């Protein structure tokens, strides 16, 4: 598909319709049924965790959190193609992909509870931390790509950014460097139609994002990001393309941020219920469920049981995270440099002296 796709003309690549029925099986990803069901279950788990995180936030048990609701197929497809040695360079809204790369849900909770530890992901291989400054992480991806090529390794980088992020200069520079260096980076833009309150049409006057690949001389493709099968095929082809030394690829995954921007945001201020309803019909999990059900691969009883199981698993992990030890003073200083400079040591000692005084007067 990637080869056939003409960013100046082709329509968004889809395999299934909004109801999960195959539109055309000309291009179908290779994946066995078991794996397909597993992918679906992983997406379900991610959604469950996501929903529960939002409610933990409402309960005041966690700080600001950016929901992933509605974008799970993108992460689920990424999960299927990422190998152990491949790299994942996140923005901040790809929970399913982090989990697939080896991040633990507990770490993710710790992070949004306010511990840096939760962003260090010791169990994960080749996973960069969450990156908040929009689009800046794409340059890291290009650099990792260079290192891979330099060391002649069999690895690919998957780098994420949002539609809003494509407006930043760092997006441009990262794609340009990756293309000039011809390094293995798959750039995935989650075009979820909004950058906080700003709709996509105010972000750029171009016909979508995939076409921006022309500016860098790399292939691009616009794909229905809520269509798991199309997304999977695209990721398979893109990663294969990059892995075999052809340089970077730009994927525009068209989706919708069904939730709020973060838990501090109220989308009703800037978008209509009607619009939300239109997108409700394109929900990626529903579509995949329909497809799998039609294929006789799902059993609704089991699914109810699974969801129940997921909920209690998530909750158990969350409570575990909540019982994480307090943040020691030393941790503020300890990781600033490889060796702590005297100055920092002294600032810490002075603060400890103050704390002793404070204790003494109480």
């Amino acid at each position, binding site marked *: 598909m990637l080869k056939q796709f003409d960013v100046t003309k082709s329509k968004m690549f889809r395999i299934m319709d909004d109801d999960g029925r195959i539109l055309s099986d000309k291009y179908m990803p290779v994946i066995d049924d078991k794996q397909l069901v597993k992918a679906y279950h992983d997406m379900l788990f991610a959604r469950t965790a996501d929903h529960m995180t939002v409610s933990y936030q409402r309960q005041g048990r966690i700080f600001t959190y950016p929901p992933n609701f509605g974008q799970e197929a993108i992460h689920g497809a990424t999960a299927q193609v990422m190998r152990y040695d491949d790299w994942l360079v996140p923005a901040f809204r790809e929970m399913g992909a982090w989990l697939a790369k080896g991040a633990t849900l507990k770490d993710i909770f710790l992070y949004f509870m*306010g511990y840096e530890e939760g962003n260090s992901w010791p169990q994960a291989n080749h996973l960069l931390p969450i990156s908040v400054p929009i689009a800046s992480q794409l340059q890291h991806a290009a650099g990792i790509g260079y290192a891979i090529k330099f060391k002649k390794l069999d690895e690919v980088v998957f780098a994420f950014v949002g539609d*809003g*992020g494509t407006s930043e200069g760092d997006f441009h520079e990262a794609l340009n460097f990756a293309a000039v260096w011809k390094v293995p980076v798959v750039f995935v833009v989650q075009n979820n139609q909004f950058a906080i*309150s700003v709709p996509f049409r105010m972000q750029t006057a171009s016909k979508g994002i995939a076409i921006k690949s022309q500016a860098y001389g790399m292939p691009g493709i616009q794909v229905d990001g809520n269509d798991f099968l199309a997304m999977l095929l695209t990721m398979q082809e893109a990663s294969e393309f990059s892995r075999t030394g052809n340089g970077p690829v730009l994927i525009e995954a068209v989706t919708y941020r069904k939730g709020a921007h973060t838990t*501090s945001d109220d989308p009703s201020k800037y978008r209509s219920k009607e619009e939300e309803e239109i997108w409700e019909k394109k929900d990626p999990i529903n579509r995949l469920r329909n497809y799998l059900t039609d294929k006789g691969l799902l059993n609704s009883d089991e699914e109810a049981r699974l969801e129940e199981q997921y909920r209690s698993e998530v909750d158990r992990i969350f409570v575990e995270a909540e019982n994480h030890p307090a*943040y020691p003073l030393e941790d503020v*200083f300890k990781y600033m440099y490889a060796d702590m400079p005297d100055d920092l040591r002294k*600032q810490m000692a002075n*603060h400890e002296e103050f704390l002793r005084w404070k204790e003494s007067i109480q």
Partner: protein
Amino acid sequence: MKIMNMVNAINNALDIKLSEDPDMVIYGEDVGVEGGVFRVTEGLQQKYGAERVFDSPLAESAIVGTAIGMAAAGLRPVVEMQFCGFVYPAFNQIISHLARMRNRTRGRIGMPVVVRIPYGGGINALEHHSESMEALYAQIPGIKVVIPSTPADAKGLLISAIESEDPILFMEPKRIYRAIKQEVSEEKFSIPIGKAKVVTPGTDVTVVAYGAMVREVQKALPKLKEAGISVELIDLRTIYPIDKVTLTESIRKTGRIIFVAEEPTSFGVGSEIIAIANEEAFLYLQSPPKRVTAFDTIVPLPKGEHHYMISPEKIFYEIQRTVNF
């Protein structure tokens, strides 16, 4: 008079200036339809239209960069950087053009641009949302840096900033956006840039603060009074150019100076305050000028932030130690 918090007061200042000056425009990320992530510009697009108050694409460099062009062409842009941690993509435009255009053109092209920057910690935010890096900006020749500590000051200073022919970075202590409420006149008034304010007169020690830290110092005042220490609290209001006259007078009177800020200790505004104390009042100093400032570390995520933030207790503790030096 009306009860306003700082968000209301800033909104009111913007409203007054928009209604007065047809060449003023406001833009930035989410400032239009949504009225800003802190709701500071709420209602202004409805009132003045989407040509004067609008959302821009997500790119800080271009937000400042286009403001420079607009100013050169006779508009008066007031732009918002969403958080202090996201100004940096615009750093080149700020330091290389905004600060230099007037000098470069021998005064021919001035830069009446206001860059609003919510800054500072204490709101349990994500990474990059809590920094206090005002010294980075204060040291750039060609711009001015203003930080209000109350709703009324925010209004009066912002009106001055918008009317200034020079580029102003207007840093807003978001921690007290809604925490302080006071009566603020709905009429237009302005407070001069470059003048500090003596908040509480005193005789034993000069305490210099600004932004959210003024309130933290104030919280420590009753206990200090109890301890028999008379504090002269100065709100700097403008970080550059610093009001050395007010500072010097106070230090010469009290002989002691303590600087309180959220910023990291080294190479900060506090260093400059100490330098000024030395240059202007060396012979009057009875104890070493003291910085009660944050560690030279990155602001910890919320679970560690209490270690980092300056508390009234710490202010009390350090002031007492300085006075007893």
